[in-house]
């Protein structure tokens, strides 16, 4: 009877194949189709792939997606560690509250939140008004809004809770006595972090990094509404090719190229993080 437990994988796998792999397979097929008079014609044409191969714009945007995914990962990790570690020090009752506090911002609609950021960061916005009122600056800081800085900031904001959660879960599993042992053996808090906590939380960091990377690299609303003239993204281009330009083959090819690139970078990232001794020690025990 116990044998049956593993058969539960079948419906799940079927759902993923139907809902996820099949559409992606269709993308592959479409990328070889041709468009004639607004009609998608089955064919075996390399037109889209050829166009993609020589398009510096497309590859630039794919690179940009990777870069913004990576930078969001790095920033959320740097900010996420102190927050996650502070959370582990809370009393159990506080943790329940903390998780609610952490997740609530995710409930708010993306669009409304984006416009709230405009009010915060705008030329006549909260931050500029405050800084001018304090006499720190004379002219409003224009780079706060509609710049790569804005994209970085808001992508970090949007993804910070995921990173914190992942590291937090991992950090809770680190035996507190190991940290005490490190301190006892002469490690300052910062030594204890780099020599014990960090190595032992790399699985959490890896999980968080994958999440944040995938989410940030695929974002299009935040860059387009807050990034100003630097807000174009590969995702928006796919959307544009699909909807506006009616060039499904190229849209499919670009989407697949983006996907493949993200997969490669993500696996490289995971591989790198999981090569740490700590990750092996933690995973080995499980």
């Amino acid at each position, binding site marked *: 009877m116990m044998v049956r437990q593993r058969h539960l994988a079948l419906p799940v796998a079927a759902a993923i194949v139907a809902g996820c792999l099949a559409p992606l397979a269709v993308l592959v097929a479409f990328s070889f189709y041709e468009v004639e008079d607004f009609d998608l014609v089955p064919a075996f044409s390399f037109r889209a792939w050829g166009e993609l191969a020589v398009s510096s714009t497309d590859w630039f945007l794919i690179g940009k997606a990777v870069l913004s995914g990576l930078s969001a990962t790095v920033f959320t990790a740097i900010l996420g560690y102190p927050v996650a570690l502070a959370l582990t020090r809370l009393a159990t009752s506080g943790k329940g509250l903390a998780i609610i506090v952490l997740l609530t911002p995710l409930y708010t609609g993306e669009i409304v939140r984006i416009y709230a950021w405009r009010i915060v960061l705008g030329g006549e916005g909260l931050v500029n008004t405050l800084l001018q009122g304090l006499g720190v600056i004379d002219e409003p800081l224009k780079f706060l809004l509609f710049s790569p800085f804005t994209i970085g900031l808001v992508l970090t904001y949007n993804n910070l809770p995921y990173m914190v959660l992942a590291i937090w879960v991992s950090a809770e599993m680190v035996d507190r006595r190991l940290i*005490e042992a490190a301190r*006892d053996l*002469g490690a300052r808090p910062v030594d204890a972090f780099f020599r014990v906590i960090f190595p*032992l939380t790399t699985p959490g960091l890896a999980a968080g990094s994958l999440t944040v990377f995938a989410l940030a690299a695929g974002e299009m609303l935040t860059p387009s509404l807050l990034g100003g003239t630097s807000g174009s993204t590969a995702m928006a281009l796919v959307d544009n090719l699909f909807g506006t330009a009616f060039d499904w083959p190229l849209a499919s090819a670009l989407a697949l190229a983006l996907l493949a690139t993200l997969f490669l970078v993500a696996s490289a990232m995971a591989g790198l993080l999981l090569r740490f001794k*700590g990750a092996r020690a933690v995973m080995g025990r499980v």
Partner: protein
Amino acid sequence: MEKRTEPAASPLLLAMRGIVKTFGRSVAVDGIDLDVPERAFLTLLGPSGCGKTTVLRMIAGFETPNAGEMRLDNTPLADVPPERRPVNTVFQSYALFPHLTVNDNVAFSLKLRGGVADIAVRVRRALDAVHMADFGQRYPHQLSGGQQQRVAVARSIIAEPRLLLLDEPLSALDRKMRGHLQIELKALQRRLGIAFVYVTHDQEEAFALSDIVVVMNKGRIAQKADPQTIYNRPADSFVADFIGNSTLVEGRVLERRGDAATIETALGAITAPAAEGLAAGDAAMLVIRPELLSTRGEGEATFTGSVSNCVFQGERSMIQAEVAGVPLRFAAETPYAVGTPVALWLDASRSFITRIAA
């Protein structure tokens, strides 16, 4: 056993005065004074929850006392973080770093200091001291419990601390391994000449290892003395009850004469050495340890009763006999059947009349 040096005779290493530690509303340590002399092997003994581990953690610097003062080598410890205290700890679960090899675990504190030239040599030496030199390349999860324990000890002595704290280091090991390691630990302490503060709830272990035993109860020190004194003259009924397998019989002091007193109990009036300060009329407790009861004696038997329970323990049996409603325990070479009538002789001069614990 040899007569030990009085604690006060060695120079003082650690002094704790009026230490209080509370967690929320519960008081873990309730105003204790404790001195640890140089080169002493001091054991904190008590049931779980008595505050012994908290004392250890305060010495290590993981907890900050709410009140009181601690001095190590006459320097206040108040603002010294754990990493700057010349104190190392062997943790109950060993707390070996799972991502580091045995060598790296042991070398941890030396590497942190930087500029230590002979790390490899010293690691080797520390591992030699615990007979683990051949395991340097292994990871903790590849070691047995006893081996992990040895590595933990090696790791905490390599930096030559002034004081080594051991938090129930042998509790997770089987009986035989525990016996081995007790002997090794004691030998190691003598060889290194560092003071050990050892936490355990196992009185046999405490007696086997310690120069000084500190029995704790509910955050306070119930008694602090050498093992023999603790055993023979427990300061109060708590210590008496916690140590050994004694029968405690409540009664009232009839008469006090020098070191001895006569106590009236359910078993009758018995004269025995008594705790200082007990006077006629005080409620007190007579402590009867199993080995003071014998089934053969001269003259009239002290008590007569019948066997109510018998536990076979191999070389001897532990018998419980009911005497005037009081269960008395004693050892016998052969098992007894339940219901057998027995006559018992008490060596009253070696029993003890002690205070009733608060």
